């Protein structure tokens, strides 16, 4: 479970079917269960107006994909990675009509990056339905080299780009879709606390 924290740290809800002209849904393997839970309470015809982008990433869970497919959405896409799916999402957002609703489910990295794309398309973040599922791994921007390290599970963590050891803060930027990492041993290089599995 994600714990409440400081006010820049995103909070997520439970996906709820909203009235809308179309429903744009993005999920990874963990998030698929949130879509299926929403489907159980969705009104008849909800998925006739839905476009699902499913990005299972490392999980090769066929069963979830099959169950999502069985929802019979107007459009269904299963992609190999979020990076591969983002151009399709960008186009869908660019073509979105008034009344399009966006639903994001899964890890914070997926929710954050899809939300960033929606913000760039002019959608207000508070109108987006989100639900966190699965790992609490973080996407972290090194404040020093600005490189982004994906799937950070430890505290501290090593920047994959410049190699500095970073303290992973709760401070989060929607615009960057990442938590902030700050050099933990700046004052006394090499004096680093033991590494803990903080974001399993």
């Amino acid at each position, binding site marked *: 479970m994600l714990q409440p924290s400081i*006010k820049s*740290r995103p909070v997520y809800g439970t996906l709820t079917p909203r009235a809308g002209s179309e429903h744009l849904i993005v999920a990874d393997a963990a998030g698929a269960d949130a879509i299926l839970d929403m489907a159980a309470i969705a009104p008849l015809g909800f998925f006739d107006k839905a476009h699902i982008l499913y990005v299972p990433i490392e999980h090769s869970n066929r069963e979830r994909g099959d169950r999502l497919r069985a929802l019979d959405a107007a459009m269904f896409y299963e992609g190999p990675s979020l990076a591969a799916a983002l151009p399709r999402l960008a186009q869908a957002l660019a073509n979105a009509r008034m009344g399009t609703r966006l639903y994001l489910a899964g890890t914070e990295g997926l929710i954050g990056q899809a939300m960033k794309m929606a913000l760039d398309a002019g959608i207000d973040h508070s109108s987006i339905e989100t639900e966190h599922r699965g790992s609490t791994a973080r996407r972290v921007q090194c404040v020093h080299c600005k490189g982004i390290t994906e799937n950070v599970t430890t505290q501290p963590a090593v920047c994959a780009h410049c190699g500095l050891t970073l303290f992973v803060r709760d*401070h989060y930027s929607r*615009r960057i879709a990442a938590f902030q990492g700050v050099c933990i041993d700046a004052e006394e290089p090499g004096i680093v606390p033991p590494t803990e599995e903080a974001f399993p």
Partner: protein
Amino acid sequence: MGIVFRKETFRDDFSFRNSPANIRRFPFPFDRDAYMYAVNIEAHTNGRPGTVFENGIDVDEHYVSEMQDRALVLAEDPLRCQSLPHMELAGWDLLELLMEQQAGGYPEHFELHREGLNWRWINRPLGIDDRFVFGDVSTLPYGPMEYITRQSQGDFCLLDQRDDNLWMDAGIVTTQADWSLDFDIGMNFMEWHAPVPRAHEMGVFDRALKFMLNLRHGQPMRRFNWTMTINPRLDTSPENYHKWGPERTTVTTENVGDKVHLRVELQSFWRLPRSNAVVFPIRCYLLKLDELVTVPKWARRMHRVLRDLPQDLVDYKGMTRWRPLAIDYLAAFDDGAPTSPGFWPD
């Protein structure tokens, strides 16, 4: 007449100093012998001559050198100055405000001439004499915010007002106390203040936001913030923390008075007329402990404030490592005598 501008550095050999007259006008932020968060917002009215409140935008002896330091920071990292696309009008508002304030307050150094939209700006300390068309960005070498804030002391944040909140959607930040504009741009008031300990629970930010949402054009407000910095480094950015952080381990009994600086931010808030944005200048003033103790009242009070500061604030402000040395240094100047109310020197 006019200000004698010092040639000095805020990096490398750190030749920054305050003249004796400039020490007396330092905005000492403690009006009593203890410190705790407070909203502490007051009207930013022009105050008594010889203080930093004499003009709405203060220009002092460090002006030219501070602008040179800003240019160095921007050459290395242009992301210290950013403006989201909808903020250009606010940038013009800011240009007007800073030109009017500087020309009005220091006519011997700055002149603004306007004929309709055709403006001429003369900045003698920096050797600038530019003609441009107000509102036409193609007639300036930079966007309006960057153009004028490369010629104005202090950091500047431009806040857009919508949804009963303020959004940091533009700014130039090169003299900051360890926060990143590049990371925080686009955040709302509560989000960019998120890492500050205690103050949220105390309701400080709720009250401050309510206050700022009601800010009126022509009625600017101000408050102080403070921290302490090792060496007179203006650019204590998180981006470069791994470069300046080790300086915190260099304080000794011998150099504490020269190395440890009180860093005061005079924050003011101004409603802008065309864009309805709020500009939030954060002007940084530095004072060495060696300079501070030349004012006996400040020396006594600084000792008491630093000695009694709660540990979480000590840690947040990055003072943990060298604070005992600074307290020992200041203790020699504190005879226990009572201090007079208010922050002015006796």
